[in-house]
């Protein structure tokens, strides 16, 4: 199931109303740090398989277990894919990039240093243009660098948290898998844009086939830095970091909540503390994880086991040539035909190519977008398996065939050899001569409900319509049924 798809309408803001009580004088400043796990065959610095799942510690070797004497050898593919992403983000690709050691002790970090990049990353100074309903917002990309992921710690205790745990088990399968870290400039000023940026970035890495970028598997993770400042000022105030958000909508909610919290603190004359907040959607507050006073000194220094990476111009040009039209540009293009929201949902849901095919096959653009964003997504069908011609026929006939037939057909639209024709032959029943006796029978069978309706409980209309639809096996035209039930009651 793709994240962030399912509605063609904008989500109502559930958080703080920034226009209230003098709050219009505050401007939020938001920066994002995103980690994307590359789906290379092998790990970043050894030849172990890079794959989700597998028996714990079955995908390990002396290198990723940090045995004495083991040395890292960089994964060429991972470097190329990071460059590709850098190019998609309009970054400058370094002529000379350096891996650094980032030192810290933690059981998930067997060398006690992570091989990462520090002041000479592979990709820097790029941007991602995020289409919004008000036009394009350009978000600066500070850097995109390559590093290795940590192992997974399993704290053995009922709470699942570190506190109270009696033991920690470590699964090193994930240890040393390639990870790209993308850091944005603090160019984002509202939660909605942050969410759109994340959705667009996700779609970009998925289309580049760099990563599955699945939030629920952790192959895409992100942290959000939030601060607020008086509107019109260019100062950067103390920021807090939101971690552990596992959906884009949660992120938007968390950001709004944090913005409101900081504004409240400033307006009450307080000071925002630099801290990391663990976002928990079940609770109203974001409890602090740790304050920055305990921040580590990572003692970065150039990794002496590796030589600098020097991507040649030929390689960069070759990778640049593989890039196709990126999702942001496609949203802008489709938004010329549809609403911005529809365009956004189609592209970030990976549905826009199918949509284009449907329109080419004669389907109404708006109707096609509605079907794709709602029923099609709900049916969980892979867009790549669909015969667009057949689906276009279904979309065009949606109003003329029974709802049940449409749903049944849609569920099978991904099957090999699917044909819409048998479903198109089923016609919706709109003939009042056929429907009225059925409706009357149902009214007679439910006198109490009929009485309540007549005395003003209009909500019961749906009860009768539902019964009629059921009675007719879904073949009745709901519009006509509605009309006739009302008349006969």
């Amino acid at each position: 199931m793709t994240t962030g798809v399912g509605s063609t309408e904008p989500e109502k803001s559930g958080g703080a109303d920034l226009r209230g009580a003098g709050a219009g004088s505050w401007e939020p400043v938001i920066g994002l740090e995103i980690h994307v796990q590359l789906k290379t065959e092998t790990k970043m610095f050894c030849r172990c398989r890079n794959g989700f799942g597998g028996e714990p510690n079955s995908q390990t070797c002396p290198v990723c277990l940090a045995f004495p004497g083991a040395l890292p050898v960089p994964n060429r593919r991972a470097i190329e894919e990071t460059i590709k992403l850098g190019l998609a983000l309009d970054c400058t690709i370094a002529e000379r990039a350096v891996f650094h050691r980032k030192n810290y002790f933690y059981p998930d970090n067997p060398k006690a240093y992570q091989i990462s990049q520090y002041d000479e990353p592979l990709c820097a100074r790029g941007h991602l243009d995020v289409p919004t309903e008000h036009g394009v917002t350009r978000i600066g990309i500070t850097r995109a660098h390559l590093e290795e992921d940590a192992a997974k710690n399993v704290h053995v205790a009922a709470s699942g948290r570190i506190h109270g745990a009696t033991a920690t088990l470590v699964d090193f399968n994930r240890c040393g898998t390639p990870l790209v870290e993308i850091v944005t400039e603090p160019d984002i000023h509202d939660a909605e844009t942050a969410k759109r940026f994340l959705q667009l970035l996700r779609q970009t890495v998925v289309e580049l086939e760099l990563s599955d970028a699945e939030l629920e598997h952790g192959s895409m993770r992100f942290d959000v830095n939030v601060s607020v400042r008086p509107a019109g000022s260019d100062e950067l105030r103390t920021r807090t970091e939101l971690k552990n958000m596992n959906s884009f909508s949660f992120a938007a909610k968390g950001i709004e909540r944090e913005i409101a919290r900081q504004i409240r603190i400033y307006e009450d004359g307080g000071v925002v503390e630099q801290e990391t907040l663990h976002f928990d959607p079940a609770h109203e507050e974001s409890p602090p994880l740790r304050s920055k006073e305990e921040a580590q000194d990572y003692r970065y220094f150039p990794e002496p086991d590796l030589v600098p990476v020097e991507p040649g111009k030929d390689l960069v040009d070759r990778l640049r040539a593989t890039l196709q039209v990126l999702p942001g540009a496609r949203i802008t293009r489709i938004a010329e035909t549809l609403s911005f929201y529809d365009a956004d949902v189609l592209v970030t849901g990976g549905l826009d190519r199918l949509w284009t095919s449907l329109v080419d096959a004669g389907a109404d653009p708006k109707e096609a977008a509605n079907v794709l964003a709602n029923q099609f997504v709900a049916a969980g069908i892979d867009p790549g398996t669909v015969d667009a011609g057949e689906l276009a026929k279904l979309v065009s006939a949606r109003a003329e065939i029974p709802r049940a037939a449409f749903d049944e057909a849609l569920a099978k639209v991904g099957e090999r050899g699917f044909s819409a024709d048998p479903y198109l032959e089923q016609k919706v029943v709109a003939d009042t001569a056929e429907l009225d006796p059925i409706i009357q029978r149902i009214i007679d069978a439910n006198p109490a409900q009929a009485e309540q309706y007549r005395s003003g409980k209009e909500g019961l209309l749906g009860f009768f319509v539902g019964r009629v639809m059921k009675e007719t096996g879904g073949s009745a035209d709901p519009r006509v049924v509605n009309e006739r039930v009302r008349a006969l009651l």
Partner: protein
Amino acid sequence: MTVDTLRLSAEEANGLLTRREASSDEIYRAYLDAIGERDPELHAFLYVCENDPGEGIPIAVKDVIGTRGIPTTAGSKILESYIPVYDSTVIANCRERGLRVIGKTNTDEFAMGSSTENSAFGPSHNPWDPSRVPGGSGGGSAAAVSAGLAPWALGSDTGGSIKQPAALCGHVGLRPTYGTVSRYGVVAFASSLDQVGPVARNVRDCAFLYSVISGRDENDSTTVDVPAVELPTAEDLKGLRIGVPKEMNGAAGIEGGVTAAVQSALELAESLGASVEECSLPRSVDYGVACYYLVAPAEASANLARYDGVRYGLRDDGADFREMVMKTRDAGLGDEPKRRIMIGAYALSAGYYDAYYGTAQKVRTVIKREHDALFERFDVLVSPTSPTVAFPIGAKIDDPVAMYMNDVLTIPSCMAGLPGLNIPCGLSEGLPVGLQLIGPQFGENTIFRAAHALEQAIGFDVVPERLR
């Protein structure tokens, strides 16, 4: 036939094999017998292999070099129980040529030291005088080769750990150009400096062993393709331009007997056709040791952080992860590694990085340039390897800085990544004096040629007098 391990070179031992005068097993057993006879006094070995497979001659291996199925402790309690699951590349290379590991030799803990006195398992003793150190950190390999307990050995050199023990025990040792020999499987001390190299009784054996272990390794990204190794045969030094850095020959602390032996070797070189000219490496000698003692500990502080008791080696249980790691490291690491971890962590810390590690890296570039400039005029540079002959066990153990100064002459070329080779050039007070030949990057063949001719002319008997 009897195998005279005390006098046999590796080439000669191999000759016995190829002429079928002795079997691989007979030769192996002869060295085991020698170990049984002389190692109780010398303590060159931390582990002796009963019968390592192979059809060739034996080799002793410094205990920082990982050997599959054979304990590899790096001279540390923290790895006392560690048995590698894989061979280092250099060991794999040796095995491909039929060489059989005869045992693992003593070393200062994690190769940190100049005397083997920092070994967690006690010091080795100099075969020329057992009351004295064999040098370090590779004192075990040096003592083993010197006393005929192995025809040759592998060592590792970070700031002089092959060259200095070779000097103090009176034989040949090469620290190769950085990047020519794989470090894969070798317990890391300071990654940008560590190099494995041969320890041998003569220059030809040394060159041959270098040809076995060198070359690009896909498991070590810092390795490169290496020029074909030429076994030296030349007896003269015609056309060789020798530079003699005055700071490395006239430094305070160089013993008179050492200076005299090197001086007469230089005169011999001239008589063999070499030109000898004084030159200068002012910054390299002044700042080399200070620079080394920032770079090496910094890298060590990260390299030794993996010994946490989680996956292998010693574990001292604690209430939580942090306490377990602290107790394990406190119990498992000796004073010298602790000292260097602290120096290194400090040098890398925020606020100190630029002043210490950052500056040291810049100085390192200066040292490299200073050497490069000299190699536009000279083929090799010559100096004493160690300022002193072997010193008594215990003499410097309580004075780390005095101990560090042992390496003042070997460190600069290590910092520059250059090859350096020790040959014995005479005796002072009955103890061997070592002469160091430093070459340009990948200049091993030049060094071998010069060292071989000089070795023939000097005619030093590598068998310790008391064992003859």
